[in-house]
Structure formats: C-alpha cells, structure tokens
C-alpha cells in the first residue's frame, strides 16, 4: 500500500516541481527584459562612426536626429 501512495506522491511532486521551475523561468525572463530595456541607448550615426578611412570635412557631418520612437 505504501508504494501506491509513494507513486502518487511522486507523481504530484514532479508535476508541481516542474510548474514551479517554469514559474521561475518566467520570472528570470521578466528580469532579463527589464535590464535590456534599461540599457537601450541611441546608436550614434556619422561617417567616422562608420569607420570610413577618408577624413570628411566637419561641416558636412549631419546633426544627430532623435532615434525613431518605437510605437
């Protein structure tokens, strides 16, 4: 009799254990998204930044437009 109970106990133990593990997985994903959103910085765009070898005259460098807002 004890083995039957043991079997059913293990059944629920493993299933709920897996659910708890999944919940932990979701929490860690949420943390990762928060940290990613925090360090999103606008990307500088100019000829020098693109590693071009010819020195461009300064006045031709365009002012930086604000990065496109994500909808």
């Amino acid at each position: 009799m004890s083995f039957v109970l043991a079997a059913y106990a293990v059944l629920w133990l493993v299933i709920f254990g897996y659910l708890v593990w999944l919940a932990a997985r979701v929490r860690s994903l949420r943390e990762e998204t928060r940290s990613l959103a925090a360090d999103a910085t606008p990307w500088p765009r100019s000829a020098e930044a693109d590693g071009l070898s010819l020195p461009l005259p300064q006045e031709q460098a365009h002012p930086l437009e604000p990065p496109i807002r994500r909808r």
Partner: protein
Amino acid sequence: MIPLVIATAAAFLVALGAIALYAPLEAVQGVAQKIFYIHVPLAWCAFVAVGVLLVSSLRFLRRSEPRHDRLARAAAEVGIVFATLVLVTGSLWGKAVWGTWWTWDGRLTSTLVLWFLLAGYVLLRSLSEGPPARTARAAAVLGVIAAVDIPIIHLSVQWWRTLHPDPVVLRAGDIGGGLTPRMLTTLSISLAAFSLLLVTLIALRRRIAEAEDEVEALWHLPGRGDLAA
C-alpha cells in the same frame, strides 16, 4: 489556457476517484496494481510527446517557422518530465510486486533510453552557442533522428531481452492482458486525464518558449528601437 487547466483538474478528480473506488482490487497483485493506472498513461504520454517532437521537427525543417521550433522544444522538455515519472512509477510498481527496484524489462528499458535521448536533445539546445537559427535546425535534425531510432532501440532491447541465454527470472508480466471491463474504463478515464495534462503542459511551455524568443530577439537590437516595421 485557463479552461484547459480547469478541465485537466476536473478530469484528474474523476480519474483519482475512479482509481480509488471504482477499480476492483486485482487478484494477484492486490492494491499495488493501482499504480498501473498512472504508469501506463504516463508511458503513453511520453511517447505522444516524442511524436509531437518528431512532427514539429519535420515541419520546422520543411518551412522554418519559429512556432514549430517552439513546439518541438516544449514537447521534448515535457517529454522528459513524463519519462522520468514513467521510470519512477515503474520501479515503485516493480518493488511493490516483485521486490526489486528495477527489472530490465524491455518496455521499461526502452523508456530509460528514451529519457537519455530527450535529455540529450534538451542539452544540445541549451549548450549550443551558434546563431539561434542554426541551433534550431540542429535540434530539429536530432529530434527526427532520435524519434526514428526509438523503435529500432525498442526492437534491439526486446531481442536483447528475449534472446537472452539465461532463463529470464523476473517476467515483468504482460501489462495489457487480463483486464476486466471495470479496469478498462478506469484506465481510459485516467488516460484522458493524463492526455489533458500533457496538452496543458506543452501549451504552457510553448508560451514560455515564445517569451524566450522575444527576449532573445531583444539581445540583437541593442539601442535601436527599429524593430522591423
């Protein structure tokens, strides 16, 4: 998602009730036979999970849509959970009926090998470092190969068992035979409950896989918010 969880819970209540009250006490094994009602459905679910893995891997290789890849990932992981349960309940049942924790019976041993294959699949995915698309394709190919190999392994384990020179001491007994109608109904209820559980877990794990892919995509776009319009 919620209705699925409620349905599974209800099905299990009915199944447990049926197993405890409705199913008759089996003549030879007595109450220990009640493990049978979860051991067999678990084994059935493990093999269904592998089937889902095979189909979704093949579909992903034909048209590489991420959703097939996610389904394969979910099926493999849930498959391991069920395979582990099959092994545990199998050995508990063996201990209860024959007094030995492990009988190298053909079916149980095949499930053990199945467990290794699924573990290998999940390990390949988590340890791969190349571009995600390549990992997904590699995992899909492994999924197909593992699934095709299972029947061959099962056959060779059976031969390994039956062509064994020494007389086999412990016959694990044929699980299927000798079932009274009442037992059969209990088994089918329990089978339905476990199948629902399988579907719920796979659906849940697939949703999490979607979240994983979202986060993965964010890593590739640091700083620029221009997700493809």
